[in-house]
């Protein structure tokens, strides 16, 4: 049972793989429950929301289900075309690993067990928890800023870590292991998972868009955006990398139609090459200078007009305003009818 719990907590380890082998788990025979949990893992990875198991009714079956769900999630992710989904999933595992360690009453022991499992060359230290050779420490991705080398005790080629630092290091390693193991070659993925992954992908993108639309509702209505702006808006929210000019265009437009600075930051955070400080700089500039979207003439030069009809207007904001006026008139007339 101890091994089973460990494998469930850290499904990227050799212990988990060994369990799957011993249980003769075949990806073609997995049940609906495991697939649902795999889909939930992906959904949580995508949204950044917390993922946990039912700790009240936990039993052996639930642990097994979780262990099996992990490789299924990897198969599904490998056939998805959502940008950054691999990074998000690896980050999800990183966060999960941290939660598992800090929420366990045996954090120290668990850290050491995981370190042994991952064959880390650590030394137990008196004044710290452990020390690692510098080059061993440098193997991680440094996703968590708390792991930055400069903020660690580095002496003579060794990095000295307290328990919290070591837990963070292990989490970063879990990120690296998962990230490096993806994507799985297409030929190895059963067809049913390819179909399923497509369905999950489209649901995730829709949910994301709806969530964002809900946040900005009342201020603006994306359904009335000019097609070119809607195209940029949808692509950005789907995590596609826009060109510099496209970002500036949609950024200027959203600023003009009433988005707030924090909302614009969230909007741009979907980009696969998102870097907070760079995005913040550009968003600040857009708001400080009150940058507007370019005219249709200019947009035409850059080839980002998707519907020729738009060119009847001088500027995308005029297009949007005209649609808003029509929508409001219709709404008012309907409200008027109700009053009567």
């Amino acid at each position, binding site marked *: 049972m101890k091994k089973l719990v460990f494998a469930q907590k850290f499904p990227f380890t050799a212990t988990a793989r060994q369990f799957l082998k011993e249980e003769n788990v075949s990806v073609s025979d997995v049940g609906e429950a495991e697939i649902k949990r795999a889909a939930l893992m992906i959904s949580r990875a995508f949204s950044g929301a917390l993922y946990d198991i039912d700790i009240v009714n936990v039993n052996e079956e639930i642990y097994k289900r979780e262990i099996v769900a992990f490789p299924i999630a990897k198969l599904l992710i490998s056939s998805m075309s959502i940008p950054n989904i691999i990074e998000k999933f690896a980050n999800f595992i990183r966060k999960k690993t941290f939660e598992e360690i800090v929420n366990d009453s045996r954090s120290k022991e668990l850290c050491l067990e995981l370190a042994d499992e991952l064959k880390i060359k650590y030394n137990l230290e008196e004044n710290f928890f452990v020390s690692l050779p510098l*080059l061993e420490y*440098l193997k991680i*991705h440094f996703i968590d*800023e*708390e792991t930055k*080398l*400069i903020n660690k005790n580095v*002496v*003579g*080629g060794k990095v000295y870590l307290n328990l919290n630092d070591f837990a963070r290091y292990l989490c970063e390693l879990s990120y690296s292991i998962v990230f490096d193991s993806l994507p799985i070659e297409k030929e190895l993925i059963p067809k049913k998972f390819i179909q399923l992954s497509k369905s999950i992908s489209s649901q995730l993108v829709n949910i994301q868009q709806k969530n964002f639309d809900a946040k900005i509702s009342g201020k603006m209505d994306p359904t009335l955006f000019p097609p070119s702006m809607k195209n940029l808006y949808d692509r950005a929210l789907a995590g596609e990398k826009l060109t510099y000019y496209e970002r500036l265009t949609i950024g200027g437009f959203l600023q003009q139609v009433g988005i707030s600075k924090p909302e614009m930051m969230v909007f741009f955070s979907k980009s696969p090459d998102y870097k907070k400080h760079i995005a913040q700089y550009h968003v600040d500039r857009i708001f400080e200078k009150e940058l507007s979207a370019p005219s249709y003439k200019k947009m035409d030069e850059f080839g980002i007009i998707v519907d020729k009809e738009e060119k009847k207007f001088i500027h995308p904001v005029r297009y949007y305003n005209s649609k808003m006026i029509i929508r409001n008139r219709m709404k008012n007339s309907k409200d008027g009818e109700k009053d009567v």
Partner: protein
Amino acid sequence: MFEVTKEEEFLQKHFREFYKKNKITSVPEIEKREFGYGVYKRKIANRNLGFKTNEEMNAFLIERTPLFFSYSNSYYMDPKATPMTNKFWLKGDMIYEFDADEVKTTCEKQAGSWVCNKIGDESFVEERGEEKKQWFLQKSLEQTKKQVFRLVDFLESDFGFTNDKVNINFSGKAGYHVHLRNEEIQNLNKRARIEMVDYLTGYGIYYDNLGYSFDKSLNCSKDIGLWSKRINQGIKEFFSKDPVQIKAVTGLTKKRCQILSSVKEEIWDKIDSGLLYDVGQKTNKAFWKSVLDYVVATYMIPLDRQTSVDLHKIIRVPNTLHGETGFIAKELSLKELETFDPFIDGVVFDSQQVNVFVEDAPVFSLKGQEFGPFKNELVSVPLFCAVYLIGKGAKLKE
């Protein structure tokens, strides 16, 4: 193709003579390296070259005689292939580059060109402006050399790399290159290299992680790594400075800075006991932040960040000549570096007289002889000086 001027022909002729007499053998695993070369006033005109052997490379140097010759810090399966992804990266030396123009110095305008020879003024970069000609003198290169020794100290004390893993060479113009070729280091990816550079340059430091706090409580780091030791030492040195300098960094009034200066021993004692001096509840946070930022900026290693993390950069081949100075990019041991003077030890050409027309040049020294200033004049100078001046734009006169 590039038009060859008589100045370039002149430089090539003498460079060729040098390469005939001096075989270059400074590139380990030559068959896995990408090479590039430069022409007159253009350091990299072509790259994606490769050589299977030292003999092949030396034959190229004699036959084509480039004025600048560079190689990749990385090792590739197919170094000549393009684009970069087709080369298949195998591993990469870690190269830290120091340039005099990265190290804080000031430049004076002499005879129409910038001369960089003073230390300690931060206005250098801005003042330099668009000026193309730079005349780095001994002092600025001495300062750069000091940074190499500081880097070696970081590499040894913090990273645990011993001297035998460190190779140094003069860049041929205004700096030094430090190469680390240990196998484990060569296999580090870009992220790891960025972390190491961030460590060396003090980038991303969180004072609270190192044990400093100056918001509600006033604590100073104790025994949390070598960076905090450096910072504590730096704080002590800071309060030994003139109150005017303390004022410039902290923005406090002159009177308050004089008071702080007078209680420096008390400040030091507090640091030794793990505390920061209380300068006033409202002032503490901004004050200590500015002091610590200043100290980190003083103690960090001013590396060329781009070179240090770029896995596909090409850099001067050690022991080849630099087309802008005619100096040799000499390989040096740490011991040799102590006494190395580029303006004497980097000079390889002899003293036969050559006539050149110089638009402008400040006073400079080569091989212990002083030259200049020159302003729109025809001068007869030794060959090593003529090469140096032509590299900087002087015209050859028969």
